[in-house]
């Protein structure tokens, strides 16, 4: 591997890591603040991707589809929290796992009824549908670069929201001590609704912006879910900063693992997880 290729592989791992972060951020937020293990998180990614495909076919614009899709995801997340999840915050983790495992099946079936079982693709917007030549025979799709840019902006936004705003302060307070926060007159139920909707929206956004480069197919949620959990576990459950570091680390290990030792490509990430857990049983950034 020469230096140019090494840099391109670094870019690949960064791009994969950022997408993973978008997914894992919602999962770790929901766990960290409400204490809910949400196995259905991958389904939100799938629903986002299908929504993007469906809306693009109706509206003919990915940007419009994403804006509308985010609104729908927020409403959907809000409703789910209100109808189901808020009744499970104080229940055992096993109950939560059962609920969310069941939801995976329900969402898959809903998807099958609404949109069928076909594999679809979403066209990359005309404006971004070109590639930058990097070496004599390899080009880099501009859309992938834009996607990484969007992920960085969202990560930055998330950081500012949680650490610099009043709402973020309330969210952190609620996670730290629920009773005390409530007794100060803060509507914790509202906060929970907001956080849950935000988590769902993040996963759906990841699905929507990834849809043009990942084909849209049944069961795509469950394949990312496992990687999502790996990221959350490595980063430390509940820590958004940990999720970012872990996602980038997983991207790096996965990318270079695939290229340098293809024989163990599937295992490299899990070996990383095992190694981290051995030395830091609670993940890199314990909350």
């Amino acid at each position: 591997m020469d230096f140019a290729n090494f840099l391109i592989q670094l870019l690949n791992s960064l791009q994969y890591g950022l997408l993973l972060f978008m997914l894992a951020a919602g999962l770790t937020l929901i766990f960290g603040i409400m204490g809910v293990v949400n196995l259905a998180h991958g389904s939100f990614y799938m629903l986002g991707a299908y929504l993007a495909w469906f809306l693009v076919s109706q509206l003919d614009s990915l940007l419009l589809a994403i804006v509308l899709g985010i609104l729908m995801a927020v409403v959907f997340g809000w409703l789910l929290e209100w109808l189901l999840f808020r009744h499970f915050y104080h229940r055992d983790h096993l109950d939560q796992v059962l609920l969310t495992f069941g939801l995976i099946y329900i969402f898959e079936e809903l998807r099958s009824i609404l949109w069928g079982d076909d594999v679809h693709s979403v066209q990359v917007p005309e404006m971004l549908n070109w590639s930058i030549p990097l070496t004599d025979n390899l080009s880099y799709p501009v859309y992938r670069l834009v996607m990484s840019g969007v992920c960085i902006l969202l990560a930055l936004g998330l950081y500012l929201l949680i650490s610099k705003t009043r709402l973020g302060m309330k969210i952190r307070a609620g996670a730290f001590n629920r009773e005390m926060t409530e007794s100060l007159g803060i509507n914790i139920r509202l906060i929970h609704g907001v956080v849950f909707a935000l988590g769902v929206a993040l996963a759906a956004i990841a699905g929507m912006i990834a849809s043009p480069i990942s084909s849209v197919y049944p069961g795509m949620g469950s394949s990312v879910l496992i990687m999502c959990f790996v990221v959350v576990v490595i980063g430390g459950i509940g820590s958004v900063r940990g999720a970012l570091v872990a996602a980038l680390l997983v991207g790096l290990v996965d990318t270079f693992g695939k290229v340098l030792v293809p024989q163990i490509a599937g295992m490299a990430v899990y070996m990383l997880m095992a190694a981290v857990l051995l030395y830091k049983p609670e993940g890199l950034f314990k909350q």
Partner: protein
Amino acid sequence: MTTRRIVLTRSAAVMGAASTGLLLPHLARAQSDKVRVGFMLPYTGTFAQLGVAIENGFRMALNEQGGKLGGREIEFFKVDDESNPAKGIENATRLVQRDKVDVLIGTVHSGVQMGIHKVARDTGVLNLIPNAGVHIATRAQCAPNVFRTSFTNSQPTLALGKAMVANGHKKAVWITWNYAAGDEAFEGFEQSYTAAGGTIVKKLGLPFPNVEFQALLTEIASLKPDAVACFFAGGGAAKFMSDFAAAGLNKSIQLYGSGFLTEGVLEAAGPAANGVLTTMHYGDSLNTPRDKQFRLEYAKAFRLQPDVYAVQGYDTGLLLIKGANAVKGDLNNKKALYAAMEGATIDSPRGKWTMSKAHNPIQDIYMRKVENKENKVIGVAQKAVADSGAGCRMG
């Protein structure tokens, strides 16, 4: 009470005797009973369309015979195997034990096939495989009562190597998912490509069904091979072709694949698939009178364009008809039935093919090129390709 019970048991005994043929002459039974045909196919999930296409093709073949097998009426039984390997044995047993089928048609998924295979070997029920390409069913664990009408996973790629070298592509990278079907496809490619004088520069893989190809595409670019050969199917196949094109690799490196790369995903892959070369035992534009007639009839009957799976289902029907006609519908005459099926030449829409000793088709493999969302046949990659059937000993 007692009298009624006696009546009941006696009539049950009479019925039982009748059904095993004790009371009636053999010939009379053969004409009065229906042949029991069981479908064990995926009717839900990712492979649902494949299951439907296979059943359609099979029924079409029988309907051309007036809906009869060797002169006998047919009764159908159906089980949705959900492409779930965990339920393979259970579902196959249900058809054999409860429904008492004479012949079991199934299935698509190789993992589920292994369940059916166990039941077929244990009970001796006639099993026709209309798709699943898992090697072992017609190799080390071949059986007199198991016939395949589709392919083995290495059969399409077995025709790939020579054609690639003939096109001047002597250095290739192989890429697939690291799972059984991918490994079996590689076997065919490795064997044919190295025999033809080609060099495999590197073998790349990723876990099934991972679709994050970008890192591997970068690696391919740095290796600068003449061609890339691959085995992917379904959603992952569409994604691989799109990413390959988006990385600009399609400009300098020819992409080849086992035919499943471009089956049922051309709509999703769009223009990225144009120019991809694949090998398969069927294509969209064979332009033979036999195929044209089949496509016309199929489209008329089901208001759908047939695909390779419909052809495989149709051929499964043709094979069973050959066997049943030879024994005049008496499927219990197994020796003669199997002999007829082994010796059959199937006049298929894909072209004529025969059965190998291990019960797998010896067939022509076509080279196809993707043009305007169609797998256009551009020639025969290799005639009469047979799977090795290594380790098969019919007991």
